[in-house]
């Protein structure tokens, strides 16, 4: 019996990690030989199937969405942890709202973005519609990581700061925030990953144009969308693999960074 349990548990672990390594290995193996300089030409044409414009668009989208979501998310964390009193009804509602937000499927975000930003506000398929949709999507992630990071800061630090006559704001920004920084940053970095990997929410907000957007109101496509569109067309399998490699490398770097920062936080505790 003991042996059997041990066997089942180990087998499950092998299946899980085997699947992960197989997927990564397969995409890398099939994709790397297909990365050719043509893919990085400035302009997309049907003959070079360049992914460069999608890369730049991804970068723009991530930067803009974080520019909006980070302050809102971090400030929300400040409010929840540093200001709200215990048993505050509003806190309860905010927690419920963020929890619900984090469970909403991306296609529902996509439809909402289409109905609200694209149609109601008249932004059309554009960088700004995509940005705002993505910002709402990652908000719960940033809020939660900020909350957790702030809660892990020793109360003694706050008391010492107050004791020395510092005000609440000064304490938050100069004492608490630096200590909580790695945790908050790892949340922000994971948000980058979420946006980079997003497809369904962006299809009907950012649109699918192949060029680099030249203003907030013009359309584009991110790497994930690019890969999706290539794989549904079925004609550019090699280019899909190559795009997959670029995506995977980005995600690997992002996760590595988040992991490093997470370790730093637990060590600082």
């Amino acid at each position: 019996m003991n042996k059997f349990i041990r066997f089942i548990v180990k087998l499950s672990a092998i299946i899980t990690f085997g699947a992960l390594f197989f997927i990564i290995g397969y995409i890398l193996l099939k994709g790397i030989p297909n990365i050719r300089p043509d893919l990085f030409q400035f302009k997309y044409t049907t003959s070079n199937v360049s992914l460069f414009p999608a890369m730049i668009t991804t970068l723009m989208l991530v930067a803009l969405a974080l520019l909006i979501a980070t302050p809102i998310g971090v400030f929300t964390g400040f409010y929840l942890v540093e200001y709200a009193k215990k048993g505050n009804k509003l806190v309860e509602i905010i927690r419920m709202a963020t929890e619900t937000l984090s469970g909403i499927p991306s296609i529902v975000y996509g439809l909402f973005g289409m109905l609200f930003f694209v149609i109601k506000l008249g932004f059309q398929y554009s960088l700004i519609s995509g940005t705002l949709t993505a910002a709402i999507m990652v908000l719960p992630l940033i809020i939660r990581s900020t909350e957790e990071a702030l809660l892990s800061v020793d109360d003694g630090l706050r008391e010492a700061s107050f004791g020395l006559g510092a005000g609440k704001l000064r304490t938050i920004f100069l004492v608490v925030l630096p200590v909580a920084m790695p945790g908050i940053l790892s949340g922000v970095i994971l948000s980058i990953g979420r946006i980079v990997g997003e497809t369904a929410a962006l299809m009907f907000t950012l649109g699918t144009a192949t060029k680099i957007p030249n203003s907030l109101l013009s359309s584009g496509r991110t790497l994930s969308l690019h890969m999706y569109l290539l794989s549904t067309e079925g004609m550019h399998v090699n280019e899909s693999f190559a795009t997959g490699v670029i995506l995977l490398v980005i995600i690997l770097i992002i996760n590595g960074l988040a992991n490093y920062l997470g370790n730093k936080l637990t060590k600082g505790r």
Partner: protein
Amino acid sequence: MKTKSFEKFMEIIFLISASMSIVAIILICLFIFAGGIPFISEYGLSNFLFGTIWKPSNNPASYGILPMILGSLYVTVGAIILGVPIGIMTATYLAKFCNKKLYKILKPCINLMAGIPSIIYGFFALTVLVPIIRNIFGGTGMNIITASILLGIMILPTIIGMSEASIRAVPGSYYEGSMALGASHERTIVSVMLPAAKSGILSSVILGIGRAIGETMAVILVAGNQARMPAGLTKGVRTLTTNIVIEMAYAADTHREALIATAVVLFVFILIINGLFMVVKRRGLN
């Protein structure tokens, strides 16, 4: 005095920021429901939910989404059957069987697994799983089985992450008590630790169900997407999510409203799942 008013000012800024998620959730509900409910009330709720034929181009058009509801249900159940046991056992491995050194490598791998974009999972399934399934079962290889395997893999990190945390949260005295009574390490884990962690494990499964129902872009590549009643495990299906994506690009007027109404149904499912999740989690805390 000046700093005091600035303090007050910033507190209000923080409060406004904190209200943004409430505003967002209200806006989302408002726009999705307002976009879909007029259609549902006009077409009839039971006609819409239990209609077995989805043919928007027919005259008169037919908008029954039962095929898609069942499609979502089947692939989700398939994903649960495959993903839950493997996920819970892997979580057990990480929490109780694996040494510290290995854990330091494997834990980030689970996070990585959660971070891999769904399009990569989908593309992998399209190029690897589909041909294998095609060889075994014949047909196109895009069917309920393929989609279930794919989703089963995709929900693993969700289930593992939360289950592992809840297994770790079981007090050590449970373990010691059971060992002192003469039970083996393995026996203790299966009959003491896992039952003690059951509310956390159950929440992880509920979260996994939510993830599976909501998944779109990966499923679209491997499920076949035929908008008809599911005809068997080796036949293609269309889910609620994929129905929206496939037809939204060219839908107009009533057809478009019907798609938004599909999102309403999906959204209600997700809200129910979220509610369930919160209830289970809260009960676990008490």
